[in-house]
């Protein structure tokens, strides 16, 4: 039995540890020990699901030791984590009852497998996001439309390119220490074929030996390349980047062994990271801060 100690603070900066470990081929029996988790954000939750799903996909039996901290357990419940996790993990510990739908959650963890799921996400976000974007982030009332467009395009990326299932989740936080203001965190992850494999047939030849996860990410992220010959395609990620930049937000995409980011002034992430341990699919994180 392999045991992986889940970081005590599992947010967008710590998820690589989870993904790096789970991407290793040949792990059959894996225990994700989350007993000491004290803080987790949507990136952390969805990364755990993705990691467990990958272990299971490889024929393994992932187990998850639930956190000791009741606040963390309650939050996982409110975010709908256990609804998704029961199909992936053997859960060790007492699963709290699902909280009522009247919670502070912006968008619970939602499985994305078909376009109908994207419609469901947009319907849900329409009901809840407007107030949060205006009151917490100080965005104009109409920003819920652009926010919904971002979510729609980023979720469609799973359906159209990943050829595998994925998840989306959204929540607002007060980043008092880190940034001194509220942020909205969007996470979208899948364990499909990733950018390199999606683009390979159409574009790898022109890159020759340079073709790899980082060049595939650059091709899609910076140049809007897509596997479809249709010139109307490929604008989703470009327009997401543009809108995120307007809101002074950050967006990062990890796929395979690489990660690419659009980094605002308030963040210190590297624009491109290569040489990560391989993990299938694509993992997207978007952080939108309140206006100063």
């Amino acid at each position, binding site marked *: 039995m392999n045991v992986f100690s889940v970081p005590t603070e599992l947010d967008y900066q710590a998820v690589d540890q989870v993904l790096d470990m789970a991407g290793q081929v040949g792990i059959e029996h894996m225990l994700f020990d989350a007993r000491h988790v004290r803080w987790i954000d949507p990136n952390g939750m969805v990364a755990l699901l993705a990691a467990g799903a990958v272990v299971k996909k490889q024929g393994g039996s992932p187990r998850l030791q639930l956190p000791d901290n009741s606040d963390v357990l309650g939050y996982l419940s409110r975010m709908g984590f256990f609804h998704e996790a029961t199909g992936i993990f053997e859960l060790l510990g007492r699963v709290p009852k699902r909280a009522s739908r009247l919670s502070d959650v912006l968008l619970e963890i939602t499985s994305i497998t078909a376009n109908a799921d*994207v419609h469901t996400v947009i319907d849900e976000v329409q009901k809840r996001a407007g107030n949060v974007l205006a009151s917490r982030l100080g965005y104009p009332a109409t920003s819920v439309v652009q926010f919904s467009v971002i979510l729609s395009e980023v979720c469609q990326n799973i359906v159209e390119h990943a050829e595998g299932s994925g998840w989306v989740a959204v929540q607002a936080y007060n980043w008092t220490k880190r940034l001194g203001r509220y942020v909205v965190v969007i996470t979208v992850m899948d364990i499909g074929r990733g950018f390199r494999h999606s683009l390979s047939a159409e574009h790898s030849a022109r890159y020759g030996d340079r073709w790899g996860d980082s060049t595939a990410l650059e091709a899609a992220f910076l140049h809007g390349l897509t596997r479809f010959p249709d010139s109307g395609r490929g604008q989703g990620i470009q327009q997401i980047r543009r809108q995120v930049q307007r809101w002074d937000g950050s967006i990062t995409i990890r796929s395979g062994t690489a990660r690419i980011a659009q980094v605002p002034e308030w963040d210190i992430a590297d624009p491109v990271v290569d040489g990560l341990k391989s993990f299938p699919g694509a993992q997207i994180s978007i952080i939108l801060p309140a206006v100063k």
Partner: protein
Amino acid sequence: MDLTPLTIDVGVLVSKTVTSLHSHLVTRPTGRAVRLAIEAQMASTGVQSLSIIDLSDVTILDFSCADEVIAKLLQGYLEPESPEAFFMFRGVRESHRDQIQVVLERQALVAVAETDTGVRELLGVIEAYDTRVWQLLETEGPLVREDFARMFPEPILDDVLDRLRKRRIVFQNPISGRYHALSQLVDDPL
């Protein structure tokens, strides 16, 4: 010649086309289904048609749907063998503009839009001079070539009028030779 406008309510089409209660114009398959439904409605029109694509009831329009319902719709009817179809997009909100502008720019297209406040304008890719000529027709038309020539005496005028006609943002009556703005045809059909 019959250019009676055909009004197509996209909000109704979305709810009829997508097999659920979802009403937002999001995802490419939804956009494709709505475009095909529009094209099916247009199949009953003649070789010339004017369609009003009404977006008034559409709250969310994403880029994938804008590409299908606006850019690909326009592009399809600019093919050499296709019927001479004219489109005006009605009920365009501020929250739609960016998506429409982006997809039109990507395909170097132009479209006549009527905002939710009733302002008529061009979206997409168009030269400033061409816009001025179109604007004159919009405010003063219908006009014959000589009317334009008084305001725009430059030798390129014929090229501009020809370009506006070929891009289907003005209509030239083949009998009278008069140029019509699409909005005038909507208000006062031929």
